[in-house]
């Protein structure tokens, strides 16, 4: 049976507490091409926000802006925690280091003792089913295993903010389900504010409490995954039902 995240109730959201990510009037251009145009949203602790939209609409750019890898042209981003984990689309493991050493980098700032560090790494790897791969190099792992290692590295610090960049893209359906399960478990156990950027139907349907649909640099629709399926918004309707008819392809084909 496929698990699905229970929709977060307004009471639980208030319970989960404080605002963790605030994005206000965010704009970003690459060369002369506007990618994001006046975007605003918030994410609370314990909430998982799904950002969906067609390829190239600026989904990953939002994550890079929130994590500070690039700077916005205008607008404001406030992240109320220094503990931030990012699961990269391509896992982004350092190939010259073992899985253990890759994980150790994430814990470097904590300056832990060797035994304590070893225990955290073993626990996190066990969580993603890779307890036996501690001394393997990334090139010795399959794509799914690399993705899971990237996931374990991102949560090594028990971050209060976790960002997922296309976590299931390029994976087979079974492995996608496994990764989605990890995202759900993470959200339930550690209660972080999470953002899942994806265009995979099952991923945003299963993992997100709330979704926003991006197109042309702006939020075209927002609501719950359930509401998305019955929405009359032309953008959401086209995206949710994967049809050619709709406003998203105008001027592109």
């Amino acid at each position, binding site marked *: 049976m496929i698990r699905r995240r229970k929709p977060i109730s307004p009471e639980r959201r208030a319970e989960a507490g404080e605002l963790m990510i605030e994005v206000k009037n965010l704009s970003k251009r690459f060369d002369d091409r506007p990618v994001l145009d006046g975007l605003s949203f918030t994410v609370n602790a314990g909430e998982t926000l799904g950002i969906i939209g067609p390829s190239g609409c600026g989904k990953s750019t939002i994550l890079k802006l929130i994590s500070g890898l690039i700077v916005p042209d205008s607008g404001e981003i406030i992240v109320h925690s220094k503990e931030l984990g990012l699961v990269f689309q*391509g896992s982004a493991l350092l190939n010259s280091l073992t899985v253990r050493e890759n994980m150790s980098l994430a814990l*470097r700032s904590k300056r832990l003792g060797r035994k304590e560090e070893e225990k955290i790494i073993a626990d996190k790897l066990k969580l993603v089913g890779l307890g036996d791969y501690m001394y393997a190099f990334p090139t010795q792992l399959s794509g799914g295993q690399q993705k899971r290692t990237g996931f374990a590295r991102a949560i090594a610090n028990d971050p209060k903010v976790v960002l997922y960049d296309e976590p299931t893209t390029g994976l087979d359906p079974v492995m996608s389900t496994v990764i989605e399960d990890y995202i759900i478990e993470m959200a339930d156990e550690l209660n972080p504010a999470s953002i899942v950027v994806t265009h995979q139907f099952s991923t945003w349907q299963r993992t997100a409490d709330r979704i926003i649909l991006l197109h042309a640099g702006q939020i075209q629709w927002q609501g719950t995954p359930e509401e998305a399926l019955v929405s009359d918004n032309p953008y959401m309707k086209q995206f949710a039902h994967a049809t050619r008819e709709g406003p998203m392809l105008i001027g592109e084909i």
Partner: protein
Amino acid sequence: MTFSFPRKSLAKIHLSPWSFIEEQFGSGVELIGQCIILFCQTLYYIARAEIDWREVFRQCYMIGVKSFVVVSVTALFVGFAMSLQIARELVLFGADTAIGGVVSLALVREIGPITAGVIVAGRVGSAISAELTTMMITEQIDALKIMRIDPVQFLVVPRYLAGFLMMPILSIYAMFIGLLAGIMIAHSAANVPPATFLDSVKQTILDRDFFVHFLKAVLNATIVIIFSCAIGLHTRGGAEDVGLATTRSIVWTMTVIFIVNYIVTSLTYAPR
């Protein structure tokens, strides 16, 4: 007039020599600026003693130990060819006892550092550029930044220190191999005994020559590591850009090595 492909990183086709010069000059100035900033950041971390010595030793192996064979072969044959030319000319003037002095002067002052520098630029500089560019493209550098690890401290400082330690060793080694080649050629082609050859070396070489040799080696290490790291850390794009970055790294490091070598020579040996 310039036509460019849609992707910025791909090579441009220049239909006007002026636009070609303009772009080359612009990118050259930009690269030099990036190198200066990177070098200052590297020195900052070294001054703060924030050094991963394990990684430094690993890089010493990659940069230094793995270069010994190719430096040996190159220095040996450069030494053979140069000694043969010098011996041929000096024998004509009856100055065959001076072969050792002339060969050693050329080796200590120019050929030793240049040979080691060029070999390390080709073997190590290109590898560093390719590695760092690949790390940029596959978001490994971004992953380091997310984990609050400065790529300069983690990637550049160990490579710079390893280059700083290994380049003088490689350079002196290249000089000795070249001298060995000189002894062999002087003995076989001009009947100069090794003892005579070495006497001539002792009489000709000054302490200052060794200082200049060391200075050139250290400068070459700085040029190779900083230029190749700066190119690697500022390249975006895809697989093609890895190749372009590698080529750019070799062209820049070798060109700058030759220019700096001339500047050091002119400052230290120019007739007054």
